[in-house]
Each structure stands twice: as C-alpha cells, then as structure tokens.
C-alpha cells in the first residue's frame, strides 16, 4: 500500500532578489494534522519561504506538490483557494473596519450578489471567535480598538473563515502574554486534531518543544535540517544548526599580546538600559580591541548597539568616549565623538541606493571636502578612492552606483565611510549578513586590520562562530542581560550555546 502523500511538499525552491539569494534549493514537506516548525535566524529565508507558500512570491525554480498534485501558487488568492492561509507577523488587518468585516474581507456573504449581509457576517464571525476561545470580542467593533493579542485572534478567525487545510503562523507568540500563549497552543491543538496542518515559526525553542511535531531549520537560504523530531532532538543540536558554520571560515590571527592590558578604554558604557529591551549594561572597549556580543534573536543585541550610537534613547546609563559623556539619544553627538555604525539593515539604514559609492562614502565627512559648504569634488573623489582601495572594494571605481555592488562590497562601502570619517569606535551589527560566504573571510581580515591600526570594535552577530573567531573578548547575552564575559579563546561554541540557553526548559 502506497503511503499517503504529504499534504504539502516543496522541493528545490530557489528565490533570488537583486544581490541576494534568499532561498537556495529549500525543501519542506508537511503532513496533514502536524505542527511543523520552521526555525532560523533573521535573514535565514523563513519569510521568503512562507511568502512563496502564500503565493506572494514566485520561486525562480523548484516544485510544489499539494496533496500529491503539482501546483503553481500564482497569487495569494490561488493559495487561499487550495486551503493555505497565512497569518503574518505584521498583521494585515484593516484597522478602520469592524472585526466581522475584516474576517470576511474579500468573501463577504452577500444577497443578490453584492449587498453585504452584515448580520450573517457578524454571526459567523461570532461563531469563529467562540471556537477560538475569545467569545468576548464583539464582531461589530473596529479592529483598531483591539489589543494586539485580540487582533491576532481576528487574523486567525479570518484564516479559518476559509476552508483551510494548512495555516502558516509567523511568530504568533511574539506579541502575546503567557496565558494568551496557552490559548494559542490550545487553538493549534484543536486545529491539528481536526486534520489541519500548521507551519509554526518561532524563535522560542521551548514553544517548539511543547507543540511541535517536526522541525525544519533554515540557514542562509538553505534547509540545513529537514523534518527533525521536535520533541527529542537535543536543543543544542537545533541551535547549532541555526547558528553554526557551514563553511570553515578563516579568521585572522589575533595580535600576540593581550589587548586587555593595553591602554585606556576609548568606549565605556555604564549602566546603559532600555526598558523591555536590555538590562543595565557595563562594557568597555580599548583601542585595538574587538569585543563581541553573542546571543540569540531577542537577546537585545542590536538594540544595545543602536542605543550606544544614540539612535535609540536610553532609559538609564551613560556612554562615554575618552571619558567624556555623550549626549544621550543623539546620533550626531556620537558621530562627532568618533563612533561609527555599520547597521544590520544596510540598505534601509546605511546606504543611499541611488547614489554612487563616492557619495555614500563621503556623506559623513562632507565638511572635510568643503569650504563654506562648497564641495571640492576632486578631493572628495580622491579620498573616497583611497578609503575604498584600502578595503579592496570591488570594482575599483568609486563612481559606480552603490546598488550595483555585492553585499560584501556594500558593507565595505559602509566601513569606508567611517574609515574616511576617522572614526575611533566601530559598531558592527551583523557585519556578514547578506554577504557571500566566500567574501566573509576577507571582511574578517579587514575588521582585524582596522583594529590592529588602533580602532576599537564592538561586534554583534547571531553567528556564534563569527563572534568567537573574530572577537578578543566576548559578552554573552540572554534576554537583555549579560550572563558571561570571557576572552574569546577561553570559550567554545558549545559553552556559549549552553550560556545563551541556560535556564530555558529542556536544554
């Protein structure tokens, strides 16, 4: 007897965007009635994969089988017709419409083909809400007046208003309180008992233990593990799959002498905190030293860097450069004092995509090439050329538009900007995100060389090997708190993974 074909089977899914290969031959198969968990760091390709599944993105290559039949999901409507519903993290509800109108948006019950039967819609909505354990939500209320948790329930009711066989939930617990999470899990249990499959995305490993049946792990656009048993696979193995190296990177040599003993710290952070993001933090970085922050998503890594840089206003604490306190929450004060940030989202936060490399590099040092506001373009071009050459940026032509560069070279353009500015403290947030594996070693060498020339570097990365390989000293973060500090050479990947997960269930 042939086994029942899986409800959904995707294989060889590839999807490229300009400059990035978001998915590279990903496979996923989902059985009816199971909770299939999708795990991966930010940028691993989870969002792209579920958008392919929802019909919002068309894959470049690959096949999708639905109940054994090959299908193409040409549009969100096509996916919905098959019975695939997606609940996005950014809820896609219309705030100015009522609960019932949102639930039935696009398939309103009508009389004579066009007159919306509001009462019918409200009644069926009330039924759905009751089934979801939230009979207290009034179908006539405006969605904008509801709490985030209630909005999520409405989103789920909308999914269930269709004849749904597969529900994709993108981090559904992110905005929920613990008791609301319990209700969510009860709903998931009811759905699977009725034969509906759930693709569940979360960063919280303990949730996956509780409700998951199988786990697929994505990393750098590839499925590094497919269909692992969710309950019995050791947590360390799962995390190692998410964060581990898949290529042996070559990390540059650390300088022989112990930097901790040399010089006064150029950057000092004292008791810096932001409510709900990270707890009071102390750290210092000396010239020539690379300090790494290691931690999982949600540990407050990026928030810490952006607060030090002044892009977020701290609730407490100080940032000092050369012993002088910076004005809190002022990027300009930070830049003037010699800080530079290479942010995680390069295209959104750092680059002027319509502009040339030169203009991207010179934007923070324009006063250097100008007199009375008048730009000396020859001097600007020369300086940009020198800075980009020092970092071996390719192509060796600062006049090309920055959007034509590869991810690694775009990152170099950002570094060149701060090099030109003469920055003394470099804050690196996920410096190799979106950078080809082959180009990473070169970036590591560049960062180490800049440090050897006296720069202080504070590095954040979700890839534990990257932090351990590049940094001199490592601070391990868990849920906004530093749980361990040690020289990098005294730590290994397993020790760090134990630290970032310490206290979490089933570790």
């Amino acid at each position, binding site marked *: 007897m042939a086994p029942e074909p899986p409800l959904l089977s995707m294989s060889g899914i590839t999807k490229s965007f300009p400059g990035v290969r978001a998915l590279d031959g990903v496979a996923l198969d989902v059985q009816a009635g199971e909770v299939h968990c999708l795990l991966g760091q930010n940028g691993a390709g989870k969002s792209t994969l579920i958008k392919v599944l929802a019909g919002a993105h068309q894959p470049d290559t690959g096949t999708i089988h639905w109940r054994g039949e090959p299908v193409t999901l040409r549009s969100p409507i096509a996916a919905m017709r098959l019975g695939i519903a997606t609940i996005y993290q950014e809820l896609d509800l219309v705030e100015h419409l009522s609960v019932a109108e949102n639930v039935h948006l696009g398939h309103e019950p009508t009389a004579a083909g066009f007159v919306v039967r509001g009462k019918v819609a409200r009644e069926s909505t009330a039924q759905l809400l009751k089934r979801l354990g939230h009979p207290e939500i009034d179908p006539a209320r405006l969605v904008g007046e509801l709490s985030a948790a209630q909005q999520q329930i409405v989103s789920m009711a909308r999914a269930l208003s269709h004849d749904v066989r597969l529900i994709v939930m993108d981090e559904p617990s992110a905005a929920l309180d613990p008791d609301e999470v319990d209700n969510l899990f009860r709903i998931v249990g009811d759905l699977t008992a009725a034969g509906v499959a759930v693709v569940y995305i979360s960063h919280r490993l303990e949730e996956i233990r509780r409700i998951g049946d199988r786990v697929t792990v994505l990393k750098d656009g590839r499925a590094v593990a497919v269909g692992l048993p969710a309950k019995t696979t050791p947590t360390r193995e799962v995390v190692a799959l998410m964060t581990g190296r898949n290529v042996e990177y070559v990390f540059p040599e650390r300088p022989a002498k112990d930097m901790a003993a040399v010089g006064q710290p150029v950057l000092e952070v004292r008791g810096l905190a932001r409510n709900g993001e990270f707890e009071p933090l102390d750290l210092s970085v000396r010239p020539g030293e690379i300090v790494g922050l290691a931690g999982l998503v949600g540990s407050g890594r990026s928030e810490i860097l952006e607060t030090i840089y002044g892009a977020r206003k701290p609730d407490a604490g100080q940032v000092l450069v050369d012993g002088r306190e910076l004005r809190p929450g002022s*990027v300009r004060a930070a*830049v003037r004092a010699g800080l530079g940030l290479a942010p995680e989202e390069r295209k959104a*936060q*750092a680059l*002027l995509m*319509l502009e040339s490399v030169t203009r991207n590099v010179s*934007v923070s040092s324009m006063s250097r090439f*100008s007199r009375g506001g008048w*730009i000396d373009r020859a001097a600007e071009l020369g300086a940009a050329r020198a800075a980009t050459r020092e970092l071996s940026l390719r192509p060796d032509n600062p006049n090309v538009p920055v959007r034509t560069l590869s991810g690694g070279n775009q990152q170099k353009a950002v570094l060149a900007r701060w090099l030109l500015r003469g920055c003394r403290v470099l804050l690196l947030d996920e410096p190799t995100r979106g950078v080809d594996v082959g180009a990473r070693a070169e970036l590591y060498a560049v960062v180490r060389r800049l440090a050897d020339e006296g720069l202080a570097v504070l590095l954040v990365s979700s890839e534990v090997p990257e932090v351990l390989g590049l940094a001199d000293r490592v601070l391990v973060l868990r849920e906004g708190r530093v749980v361990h500090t040690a020289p990098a050479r005294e730590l290994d990947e397993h020790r760090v993974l134990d630290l970032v997960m310490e206290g979490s269930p089933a570790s």
Partner: protein
Amino acid sequence: MTQHASPPRDSTGKVPSAGAPPAWRGLMARADVRTLSLLGVLAVLIIIGGITKPDEFLDTRNLQLVLTQASVIGVVTVGMTFVIVSGGIDLSVGAIVALASVWATTVATQEYGFVGILFTAVVVGLGCGLVNGMLIAYGAIVPFIATLAMLASARGLALQITDGKTQIVTVPSVLDLGERDAYVLGIPPLVMVFAVVTIIGWLILNRTTFGRRTVAVGGNAEAARLAGIDVRRQRLYLYLLSGLCCGIAAFLLIILAGSGQNTNGNLYELDAIAAAIIGGTLLSGGRGTIVGSVLGVLIFTTITNIFALNNLQSDVQQIAKGAIIVAAVLVQRRTASTT
C-alpha cells in the same frame, strides 16, 4: 607571419571604431538622456509654434513674453525641486506668492518704495517657509498636511489684506523693471533673475554640502540620520528655501502685473510640481535636477503660448498638460528600468 598578422589587424582595426562609441556614450551620459529628450520636446514645440504661427510665435516680443511668463513660475519651481528631492512637497507655494505679493503692495509698504516692496515680499516668503518648516521638521506634521494648511491660511490672509481689491503699484522704480527700456541686450530683467536663481539653484544642489544633504534625506532619511546628518534642520532649511523662492517670484509678479492681487499664483503648486516631475525629479525623493525642472517650466509655458496664439481654449491646454505629465512619467519609468 605578416599574412597571419593581418586577420588580427582586422579585428583590432575595429577597435578604434569600437572605441568611438564609448566616447560618444560618455558625452551622452554627461549630457544625460533625459535632458536631451526634454530639449527634443522643446524643439518640437518650437517647430510646431513656428509652423502654425510663423510670424507671431517666433517674434522677438513673443519669445520675450514666453520667457517672462516662465520666470515667475520658474523661480517657484526651483524651490519646489529642492523640496521634492528631499522627499517632501510644498502645496503652499501659490498661496505664499499671493500673500507676499499683496503684503508687498499695500499702501503702507509702498511708502518704503522699491526696497520696501522687495524686502516685504522676501520676508513674507521666508516667514511662511519658516512656519512650514517648523511644523514639518519639529512638529512632525507630514508635509502634505502642513503645506495644505498654509495654502488655506495664506490665501485667506491675502484676501483679508486686499479685501478682494487689486492693489496698484505706484512706485516707478519697480514698474520700470517691466518696461522695454530696462531690457539688457533684449533680455528682460525678470528673465535674468530667473537665470540667476536657476544657476544658483543648480550650484547648491550639485556642488554644495546642502545639496548633498538634501539628496541624502530624500533618498533615505534613516540612513542620513544614522550617517550623522541633522535631518530635521535640513528639512527646515528646505521649506525656508522654497518660501524664499516664492518671495522672489512674488516680486517678479508685482513687476510683471504692476499690482498685487489675492488671486495671484493660482495653481502654481500644481504647475511647479508638474514641471519638476516631467523634468525627472522623483516624487518619492532622492533624485532630481534643476535643469530638468527648468526645461519642464519652459515646455509648459511654450505650450500655453502656442495654444493661446492658435486661439485654443484653456481647457484644451489643461488636457494637453495632463497627457504630457503621464507620458513623461511613463517614459521615465522605462528609461529607469533599463539603467
């Protein structure tokens, strides 16, 4: 061996001729395909004008008139281009021109003569720009709303000042600037002001840190902020600049009309935005050229003139303008996707 060498020479013989296109292309790139196409459109219009009304259109006086009419809206458009490049919009330019023109032509102001009129027009323009800029940069009101409010208020204030009456200018030194005697080498002073504003605007946008910051704020405000640019102050300056241009335009309009009226500058905001857009300025910000905007103004003014000479009604003009805007944007999107 020499025989063997000849075929390669054939292929290398092509190199000089293949080397020519890069130089030609370099020239093209420098002149910018978009600018050339706008010049082409203007040339076609001039040919059409010359064919349909050969005597009247190409008459020196008519060309002087076209350029003079272009000057007022042109100065406004230069300021508008900066605002749009920064990702903003200024809907209040027409109303500011109206308010500045009536404030500068009250009986009380005219007592201070030429300087009083010029000074008042510029200060009123700057004042309105300051209010716009403060609301947008520090009050976090979106430019569309803030300048829409300014549009309504400034028009209202202009009506209040004039009580709907035309305020005749009686200062001879102002009126003289509109007379033929004031033309230098056949060029009206208004046109010279327009030319100077254009050149200064081009220099600021392309050669100064102010221009760079404007482009950076429009291209990616968050990246500009994280690069250490004071985005809010830059926005304030930009609306001040637009207000200043409106003040100058109001002064030109006073010279041209010999009066101040609360209905002045009607729909200037639409003309200025349209000229900037067909000139290649991205409405979403981050890219735009002064040359393109000025060519946009000249194209629109020339169309108006040709239509008027051919006794076509203004409704036909409006339809033609609308069609040109759509066509220009469609063409630009095609060229943008190929580059």
